[in-house]
């Protein structure tokens, strides 16, 4: 009975609303007591996230053991992942994130791999551009014209062909693009704020509870 009460939706919503409104209020007003409480809440949030990360690692390691025993496809990659996690954690915990080992792994292994991986996206951009630039209807024609003008604006050859391309390109960026983008940003921001408020005060349901 007591456990059911503790797990009831109302309790969760009250805690959520209290924490959310406290953090929101702290952004707008300066009350020392509130600031202290919010700072404390932020520390809790970090602790919970750290704990969840730890739980996640053990879950990953457990899954690796199960899959490796069963020799499921991809098991060597899972082991590789566990080893990397242990190595990074070792350098991070014992020598700090500013230490040589951790920095070297981060800058010369992780970042390099990341940059190389991002570069793999180029063929998809070409392919998407090809798809977008098929002039099937009026909208697509406008899209195509704007795209070609912007390409000629960005590529040095555009200015060589006609000195007006940079002017036209800059105008497209400054006037139609910026105005429409700002309108969308305002609407998105407003929708986001309204949804955030609805969520914080408990009006929105969580997906699992429907």
């Amino acid at each position: 009975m007591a456990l059911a009460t503790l797990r009831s939706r109302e309790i969760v919503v009250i805690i959520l609303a209290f924490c959310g409104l406290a953090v929101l209020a702290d952004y707008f007003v300066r009350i020392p007591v509130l600031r202290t409480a919010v700072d404390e809440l932020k520390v809790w949030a970090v602790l919970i996230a750290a704990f969840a990360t730890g739980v996640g690692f053990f879950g990953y390691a457990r899954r690796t053991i199960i899959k490796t025993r069963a020799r499921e496809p991809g098991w060597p990659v899972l082991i590789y992942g566990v080893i990397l996690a242990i190595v990074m954690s070792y350098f991070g915990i014992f020598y700090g994130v500013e230490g040589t080992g951790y920095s070297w792994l981060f800058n010369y292994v992780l970042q390099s791999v990341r940059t190389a991986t991002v570069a793999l996206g180029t063929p998809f951009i070409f392919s998407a551009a090809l798809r977008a630039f098929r002039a099937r209807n009026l909208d697509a024609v406008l899209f195509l014209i704007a795209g070609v003008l912007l390409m000629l604006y960005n590529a040095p050859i555009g200015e060589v062909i006609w000195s007006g391309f940079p002017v036209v390109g800059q105008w497209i960026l400054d006037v139609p693009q910026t105005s429409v983008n700002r309108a969308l940003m305002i609407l998105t921001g407003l929708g986001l704020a309204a949804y955030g408020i609805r969520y914080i005060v408990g009006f929105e349901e969580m997906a699992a509870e429907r």
Partner: protein
Amino acid sequence: MITTGRIFDLVIILIVFGFTVYFIWRARRGRVSQLVKLPAVDAFEEGVGRAVEMGRPVHYTTAMVDIGQRTEWVEKVLGYYIMGYVAQMCASRRAQLYVSERDALTLGYVKETLRSAYERAGWPDGFNENMVLWHPWTTQPFALANWFQQVKPGANFMMGNLLFGTVIVAEAAALEGAFQIAYGDTPFLVATCEYVMIADEYYATSAYITKKPLLVGAITGNDYVKMLLLLVLIASVALLNLGIKDVLKWLAI
């Protein structure tokens, strides 16, 4: 007491809050507004149906951010809400739903949402843990592009901004002929998807799906705030053009 430079923001938040509460109260008294059609939300059924007919799975992903990131958490949380709706739809139509997730913190939540949807639909065997794909950090778009080539999903739903990965994921799915509905980086999505949600359409999804007076009332309130802000914008531009430069100061108090 109020932090300098945030008074106008506070006023806007209070107006949003006030309108929301008023229109919820109004909706509870039976005066519920009619929501306009959101074709992208209606099309979820079409996408799932198409995947079922083709005998292919459905893929779903939320924003490529971590839940703890500042403003994006709202987008992410709503992405999970829609995921619950899509999961129920897939489970009731005997379609397999694969969800790719970048954030390790929410993997458990995603898994339990899927499990619960399949159990409630009376098809618990339809769920297995491999339906939750973990693609940490920036690996998600590339891992998904590869996965799309192997699995060839019938439908792909991207609810949240995938940042640089938007074009990679959307194009990879389009190349495999998947039916796509998305919200995020609009220009790339328009080029590759069947339906795209823009701006605050996305944030009205939960109200549109559930049609609950409480949420529909909140959306109505939000629309009135939009009109009010539009008036503020027009008035500000007019005053600025009349040479009253103090308007900028008033908006930044």
